[in-house]
């Protein structure tokens, strides 16, 4: 069994919000006890809606936010609340592709500068080598050499996203966090970018954490899937298990929420739609966070927080009724 590239151990990230004068200081439990592994070359799909903590989780994995509790092991680095990571070593291990191609590139830098600067920063001094790596990376993402001296505003959204991908990969990281990489792109070009990401993953032996609310994309690219709700993982397992046999009511609600013109998922998720709004992460419901919206809610759910336990090998769900046959 390959050694995990990324290992999260009861990770919690909390923020203090508010002030003494305006309603008191509250604790925001953005990430509330996450234990997770990603193996080299694996793609983990991370699914969740607003307030689930996926953005904070991504920041913590990259070492930009320190954990309040728990530990992160990534590529030989260890991060914990009192042990901040080595910034430069982290940069060569974990990188990120951003959602908004229009805001994620420095408008005053050419493509060449955006790609070459990190190489200089990390000690690649030889001019010829830098140039070669820049052109090579551009070719890998489908850009031509003459694009190197252009500015971001001269490119389309899809091309900008390619530049962003090139920037993320220029230091040859081992893990790339893709945060909704295609949601801000036109529908007709999303396929181009998804295909590109998958090709690069195979070619460069990368591991991905694919954050997306689009379950179709998640099913297509992931090896394993984790579903988050209000700071906790509520279900995780292999992609096929999760989508064909979802065992947590929230996962079922997500699948049921997808417009289904081909009437495919109807059987598995009939009657599974969630009610009401997502609660605030500042004031989550007691017990199981999902209980106010859950079609299967029972009294037990408001009292006892269900643990993430196995339904079958490799498939875990945090629900008191995880074994109930629907």
């Amino acid at each position, binding site marked *: 069994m390959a050694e995990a590239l990324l290992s999260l151990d009861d990770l919690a990230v909390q923020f203090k919000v508010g002030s003494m004068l305006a309603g008191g200081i509250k604790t925001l439990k953005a990430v509330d006890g996450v234990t997770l592994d990603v193996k080299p070359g694996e793609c983990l799909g991370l699914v969740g809606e607003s307030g689930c903590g996926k953005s904070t989780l991504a920041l913590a994995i990259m070492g930009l936010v320190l954990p309040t509790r728990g530990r992160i092991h990534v590529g030989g680095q260890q991060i914990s609340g009192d042990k901040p990571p080595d910034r430069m070593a982290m940069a060569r291990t*974990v*990188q990120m592709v951003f*959602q908004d191609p229009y805001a994620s590139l420095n408008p005053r830098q050419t493509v060449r500068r955006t790609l070459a600067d990190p190489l200089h920063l990390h000690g690649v001094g030889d001019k010829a080598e830098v140039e070669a790596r820049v052109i090579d990376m551009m070719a890998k993402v489908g850009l031509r050499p003459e694009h190197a001296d252009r500015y971001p505003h001269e490119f389309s959204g899809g091309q900008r996203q390619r530049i962003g991908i090139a920037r993320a990969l220029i230091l040859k990281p081992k893990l790339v966090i893709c945060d909704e990489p295609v949601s801000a792109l036109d529908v007709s070009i999303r396929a181009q970018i998804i295909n590109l990401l998958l090709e690069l993953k195979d070619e460069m032996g990368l591991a991905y954490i694919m954050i997306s609310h689009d379950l179709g994309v998640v099913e297509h690219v992931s090896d394993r899937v984790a579903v988050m709700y209000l700071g906790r993982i509520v279900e995780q397992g292999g992609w096929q298990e999760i989508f064909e046999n979802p065992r947590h009511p929230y996962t079922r609600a997500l699948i049921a929420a997808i417009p289904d013109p081909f009437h495919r998922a109807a059987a598995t998720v009939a009657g599974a739609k969630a009610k009401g709004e997502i609660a605030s992460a500042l004031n989550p419901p007691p017990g199981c966070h999902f209980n106010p919206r859950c079609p299967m809610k029972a009294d037990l759910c408001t009292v006892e927080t269900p643990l993430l336990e196995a339904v079958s090998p490799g498939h875990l769900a945090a629900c008191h009724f995880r074994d109930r046959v629907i």
Partner: protein
Amino acid sequence: MRLGANTWIGGGLFAVALAVAVTAPWIALTDPVMDANLLNAELPPSREFPFGTDAQGRDIYSRVVYGAQISLTVGVVSQIANSIIGVTLGLTAGYWGGWWDDFVNGLTNVMLAIPSLIFALAIMAILGPGLVSLLIALGLTNWSYSCRIARAQALSLKSQGYVQAARILGYGPFRIMFTQLLPNMLGPIIVIATLGMGGTILAEAALSFLGLGIRPPFPSWGSMLSDARETIAVAPWVSIFPGLAIFLTVLGLNLLGDGLRDIFDPQATTRRA
């Protein structure tokens, strides 16, 4: 890039003032300090003296021309100092936040509460009059607006994706501030600097008028106005021309600043592709 009327007119006026200052030794008719002949005192404008003469019989035109050198030097140099101080403080405060931000904010609030002219006066009183003291006094007291603007820009830009990307790539805070943030805030900073220059020129004029800036007999538009106080009824041209020079230069800078603001205003082009 279409430049509005403001930019052309303003830029033109300022360019003229600059040109006058640079070519002063060649376009002046007399030595502004030495050529004083009491027999020519308070003569109205004529062919020999295009702007007339002052109470000491000096050619006002030449004094206005040389005065441009002083006023513009003070204006430009002080403003550059102001911008450097203000941007450095504001950029670091906005990016880092925390106690440094609180400190800079407090300092800025204090600076904004003290009328800058009074502050400059106080410094001049300590340092004594003269060009260098003037530069120091004005350079140290007018950085608040640059600071505010730089801080606001830093706050809004630091959450942009490319700044976060730089952090993830291992860029340190100074590298980020000076290579990622600063180039993207130049627009508003240049606008504030241009408008600020008008302010420092006026401040210099005021200080010299009060006798605390450039002392006579050296020509500065402000000190010329001061000298002309007594004769304003009988020889209005002694105050009109330096006053007009100040007015046109500062007007030019204000128009230029407005025009630049229109250019640098971010145009939202959120097209998706």
